[in-house]
């Protein structure tokens, strides 16, 4: 009895020690540059850049497969930051990927919604709740304003509503410096 307890205890204690030590010793932080790029991107997961989400786009930038000017929701500001981070020249947003719009969220007109669940499947961040033949609604806190739910809706009951600036979400505008001309 005692030996059984002792043996199980010693096995688990030994394993715990080894795993604990290994988790400190073998820590990996992923690829830091991808994470840094991903932090700059707006996390709308809208796919306007041509990649399925912000992380894949960040990976593509890091591998040199994508340009830095393909993210309309990030705006000019985002391109500047990416250029700074990667040490490359700034270039204006590529219009092929869309234009920057003011930050907005989707609102479902609940009286028109037929409960088809198509928008739920399209939402990249799971911000839409509802079930088949039940009216859907959008969790405003989660909505990134990516507009991916608009095309699948068969009754056009989703509207993009601009977020008005209130005292809660107002923040200091970034100061705009003109880049010093060399020579």
């Amino acid at each position, binding site marked *: 009895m005692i030996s*059984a307890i002792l*043996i*199980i205890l010693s096995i688990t204690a030994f394993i715990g020690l080894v795993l604990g030590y*290994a*988790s400190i010793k073998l820590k990996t932080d992923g690829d830091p540059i991808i994470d840094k790029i991903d932090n700059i991107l707006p996390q709308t997961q809208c796919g306007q850049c041509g990649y399925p989400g912000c992380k894949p786009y960040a990976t593509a930038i890091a591998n040199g497969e994508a340009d830095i000017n393909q993210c309309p929701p990030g705006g000019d500001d985002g391109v500047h930051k990416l250029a700074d981070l990667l040490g490359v020249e700034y270039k204006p947003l590529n219009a092929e990927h869309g234009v920057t719009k003011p930050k907005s969220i989707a609102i479902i007109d609940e009286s028109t919604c037929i409960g088809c669940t198509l928008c739920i499947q399209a939402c990249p961040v799971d911000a839409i709740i509802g079930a088949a033949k039940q009216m859907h609604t959008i969790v405003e806190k989660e909505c990134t304003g990516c507009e991916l739910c608009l095309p699948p809706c068969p009754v056009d009951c989703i509207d993009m509503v601009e977020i008005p600036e209130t005292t809660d979400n107002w923040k200091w505008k970034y100061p705009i410096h003109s880049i010093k001309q060399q020579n």
Partner: protein
Amino acid sequence: MTEYLLIIISVVFVNNIVLTKILGLCPFMGVSKKLDTSISMSAATAFVLTIGSITSWLINYFLLVPYNLEYLRTISFIVVIAAVVQFTEMVMEKNYPYLYRVLGIFLPLITTNCAVLGIPLLNAQLSHNLLEAAIFGLGGALGFSFVLILFASLREKFEGANTPQAMKGSAIAMLTAGLMSLSFMGFIGLDRL
């Protein structure tokens, strides 16, 4: 040498863990929709089963048998296999990122799989020595991979086949698994373990 070959043949065909011993059915049904994933899964299983058989044999032989604690096999095997897999996963993530990306999520998935626990328990029951245990584990994984890849290829064919409405999807998969199991029963008599 022949006996090791016999162990492999017996465990791949005659005593196949999935189709004859009916172990590890969840990955067999769950990860067999696509050939690619089933191949990754097979590789991960081969890895875990071989390592798991060896470590549990060591635990069984050096800790449990000397103190007459064979009744602790199940619990200690689970703990040890889970820990070893976790540890190798960490080492792999650090040193072999490519391998880690291929096997990725499958490693923790199969840690507590019944096939992975079943093979070490069978090893203990059949009182194999260390090398036999390792080969039995590897053979079990080969058998698992063989059957899983066959099944995944069949299921990919079904996607395009004209199956009756009521039999689509899981229903036809279950039937196929049953038929495969029946056909593997045909190997009984080829060799006895």
